[in-house]
């Protein structure tokens, strides 16, 4: 296959990790909660799915059931993490940054402990081929475009549709912009905050699962997962809080991130080793620029939700 096409598909496949991560984060942020626990949640989602596959990876269950059970287990585990986060920040009104950071510390640590006990010959070797359907036997980067990749695209578009085209989405955005006003018109603020955070976390968890079981598909994949959780939070800004934009954004991020390893394979471009870190820095620099430019232009629809980071207590004035 053409090296450029291969590169593009690889960027797409890599990007699916971020599509899940940042779609989840967008839902949470739209409810007014800056969830810095996303890296930990993605890790635990991965661990949850792997734990299930470690049980059933070599069983004689039908392949579809194995795939679905793995996904459900990942959803459940990361949803539980989201529940912890929302209980702390919504019900107990704890500081969101602090809670999120503690959740990341906890989640990343717990995932590492769990993953060190798992058996890769059970959870990875067989199930990998099932998740990579329909391109499992390709040798090029097309092999990574499996079930979870297509699910990512569907989830991102569906999330956008719900957020911007339905009443539920309108209510959710109202909660994130001004919870007191939303409360006054009869929206159950806490219920929306809980639902958005838990669903968002579950979605983000799938990103971790996809990264471990499909994109990297290696025993050591879990060690590098945390960094991509942070990159997912960056992508939210890049996508200007629109889930469908994460599909484009994540491809760009994947492109920038993996071009440092591709570019050395091309004869007519000469790069030194020193260029690699600069290329890897690009996604973050671009994110910062997007953040600055959108704040200069100050267009309302491109701003972070205005009550982002603040907890809501009805009796506060």
């Amino acid at each position, binding site marked *: 296959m053409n090296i450029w096409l291969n590169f593009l598909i690889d960027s797409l496949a890599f990007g699916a990790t971020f599509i899940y991560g940042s779609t989840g984060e967008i839902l949470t942020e739209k409810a007014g909660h*800056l969830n*810095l626990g996303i890296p930990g949640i993605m890790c635990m989602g991965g661990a949850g799915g792997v734990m299930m596959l470690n049980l059933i990876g070599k069983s004689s269950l039908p392949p579809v059931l194995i795939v679905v059970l793995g996904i459900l287990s990942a959803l459940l585990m990361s949803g539980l993490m989201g529940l*912890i986060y929302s209980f*702390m920040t919504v*019900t*107990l*009104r*704890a*500081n969101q*940054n*602090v*809670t999120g*950071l*503690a*959740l*990341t*510390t*906890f*989640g*990343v*640590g*717990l*995932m*590492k*402990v769990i993953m*060190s006990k798992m058996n890769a010959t059970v959870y990875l070797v067989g199930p990998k081929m099932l998740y990579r359907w329909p391109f499992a036997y390709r040798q090029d980067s097309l092999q990574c475009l499996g079930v979870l990749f297509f699910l990512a695209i569907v989830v991102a578009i569906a999330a956008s549709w719900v957020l911007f085209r339905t009443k539920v989405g309108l209510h959710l955005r109202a909660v994130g912009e001004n919870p007191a006003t939303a409360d006054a018109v009869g929206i159950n603020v806490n219920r929306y905050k809980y639902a958005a955070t838990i669903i968002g976390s579950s979605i983000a968890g799938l990103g971790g699962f996809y990264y471990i079981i499909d994109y990297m598909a290696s025993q050591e994949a879990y060690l590098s997962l945390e960094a991509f959780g*942070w*990159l997912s*939070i*960056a992508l939210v*800004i890049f996508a200007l809080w629109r889930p469908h934009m994460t599909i484009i954004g994540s491809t760009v991020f994947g492109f920038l991130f993996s071009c440092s390893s591709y570019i050395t394979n091309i004869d007519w471009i000469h790069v030194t*080793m*020193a260029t*690699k*870190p*600069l290329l*890897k*820095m690009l996604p*973050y*620099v671009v*994110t*910062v620029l997007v*953040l*600055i430019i959108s*704040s*200069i232009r*100050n267009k309302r629809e491109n701003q*972070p939700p205005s009550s*982002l*980071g603040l907890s809501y*207590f009805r*009796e*506060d004035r």
Partner: protein
Amino acid sequence: MSLHHASEVREPLMHLSKRSAIHPAKAWAIRLAAIVLGLAVCGLVAFLLIEKIQEKPEKIWDFYNAFIKGSFSTSRKFWKFLKNLAILLGIALALTPAFRMRFWNTGAEGQTLMGVLGAIAVDFYWGEALPEPLLLALMLLAALLCGGIWALIPALCKAKWNTNETLFTLMMNYVATFVVSYFLVIWVPNGSSSLPKMKTGKLPSVGGNDYLLIILVVLILTVGLYIYLNYSKHGYEINVVGESVRTAQYVGINVRKVIIRTMLLSGMLCGLTGYLIAAGLDQTVTTNSVGGQGFTAIMVSWLGKFNPLAMIVTSGLIQLLNQGAAQISQDFNVSGALPDVITGIILFFIIGSEFFINYQIHFRGGKHAVQAGGEAVK
């Protein structure tokens, strides 16, 4: 219409109200109870994760003992405890002025790392050529400058365009990481990207102990910052901007100036801690020189209620947990990630306990409920 039904509406099971004041002893009792509860949950988790405890449940006492053993069993461990406490406290102190202003600086990791890089860069290029005292002074200057610049960029954008500072400073952490790896590639030609320890630019040891100077510097910084924040005009301005930007504007405080000045201070103090890491401890720089302490410091500062003196206790607590948990993973031969799990659990409980300090819960039918209801009617 709602008036007619008012008497029929059942009072909710629980009702919350904000406490106006709480006795400090009671507040600390709540926090202590939270830590004890957290430790109990840690024990449960340890039972689930560590096979050795499953085999012999009485080993659970060794588990709890390790928290003491990790920091206090030998004098070497105790000094290490004090040193780590000082570094963590240094970063947390740096964050505090910004936090008091409600400027959520999540970029301490990057600001400190840039401080380390700045100091080491001076050492790398002029280490041989300059006399040691001058070199140390120049390294300090470079560290302050680098840390300051890294904080100044988001501060300028915040002041001018109201750019979201939490996200901006968060991103700057990663930019800093890759700046460091860029310089490592340039400085280390063999491609290993690990810079050998510098032979020059080392802080002298005071009283025969390598760590004492660092500890003293941070101690002075703690007291200095306490005075600055509580008894100076600058400190007052920071508090007013934090409480309400509108009030600050009304009384004639130049909010932009305060934001920029305070963030510059915050970044420079991060740079100072970076200098202590570079010149006092590591003598080199890696992408992991700060090792996530920039994030932990956020929790230290917040748990200490942005009070420099209280932060000595909170950073000590976190350090105690860290070293204790490291001792556990050594004693019980489990994954090196266990400390993070334990720290995370305890943090959840401490963070959660703040709720019970700030709010009072009234149950339906209780004496308090009637009183609270009465007050609401008035």
